């Protein structure tokens, strides 16, 4: 057990190096995203589904919309309250949420989610592409 100090010393250096990302970034957490609702969305009061549902499941809902529109030629969405909406990211969602940069991008950037919606769908809030 003559090498005790080397072993312990080495272990300590290893742990410190291994934990580098943790202590280096300590206290530097990015602030939670704060998506801004547009005036139009505020005026409407509610989205096509309850806010909690939209927050957690909007991507799944969009997937269902896509399948219904493209595959089954059904383009009208009737929510549990019986209200009818045309299923269109570009013409319904963006109609209220008319500022992508202040709404969609806020959380997507924070969570490092790289969506490919905008490769094809046009962000109407911007001027000419």
């Amino acid at each position, binding site marked *: 057990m003559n090498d005790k100090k080397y072993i312990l010393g080495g272990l300590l250096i290893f742990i410190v190096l291994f934990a580098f990302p943790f202590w280096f970034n300590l206290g530097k957490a990015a602030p939670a995203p704060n998506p801004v609702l547009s005036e139009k969305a505020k005026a409407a009061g509610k989205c096509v589904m309850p806010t909690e549902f939209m927050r957690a499941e909007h991507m799944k809902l969009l997937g269902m919309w896509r399948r219904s529109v493209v595959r089954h030629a059904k383009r009208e969405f009737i929510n549990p309250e019986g209200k009818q909406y045309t299923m269109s990211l570009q013409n319904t969602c963006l109609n209220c949420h008319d500022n992508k940069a202040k709404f969609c991008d806020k959380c997507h950037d924070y969570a490092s989610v790289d969506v490919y919606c905008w490769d094809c769908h*046009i962000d109407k809030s911007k001027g000419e592409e």
Partner: protein
Amino acid sequence: MDSSRRSVLKFFGLTALGLASRPVFNAFATEHGHSAMHFEKGAKALKAKQWAMVIDTRKFESADELEPIIEACNKAHNIPQFENKNHEIKWIWETEYHNAFPQSPNRFLSEEAEQRPYLVLCNHCENPPCCRACPTQATFKRESDGIVIMDFHRCIGCRFCMAACPFGSRSFNFRDPRPFIPELNKDYPTRMKGVVEKCNFCAERLAKGLEPACVEASEGAIVFGDLYDPESEVRKLLRENYTIRRKQSLGTEPCVYYIV
């Protein structure tokens, strides 16, 4: 392995339980879990068993007359205009008789008919070879109205459909098309680099109760309707005129008919 009577019985018992519970899991797993929401067709949507088109080529004398029709489609669907022919994107375009109907080998053809411009587009075949070639079912024959349509989200850009289509109706986006769209229609998406695209019989307009953009722009030279409704305008024209279709002998059953 322990293969006593007891363990074998246990194994079969568990297997039976697993199989029996499958429907229960399926019930939980369906996307209709949110029982209250549902999807419907719009009240104004046009409906048909199989959409079809009749193009009266006698009404076109020069390629200039086709220009507004092609332009209407290009504008509605954000079709890019490339200088390089290899990158060209075409939904509906003009071609000459011998390219449109290579299998009509009659000699001493009416010169007038031979020199007419012909409009060609996706034939929305009843037996579409492109759909069989697609490995991801990004392109498929829609049950509800017979349109051969694409789900661009699913297209992986393998181009098997382009090889399978005998009409050259499909184009591939070799480049990002956005910078090459002359006038952006902000109500319709564009495509991205790496996907195939083609005519969709204006599915988005039919859903709103409108006829396809080319039909609207043709001022009566193109007629659109349900092939399986004997009372439809299309069937009336087919009854009253001699019509031909492109490469009919291949058996794809094109749904675009030409009065010549």
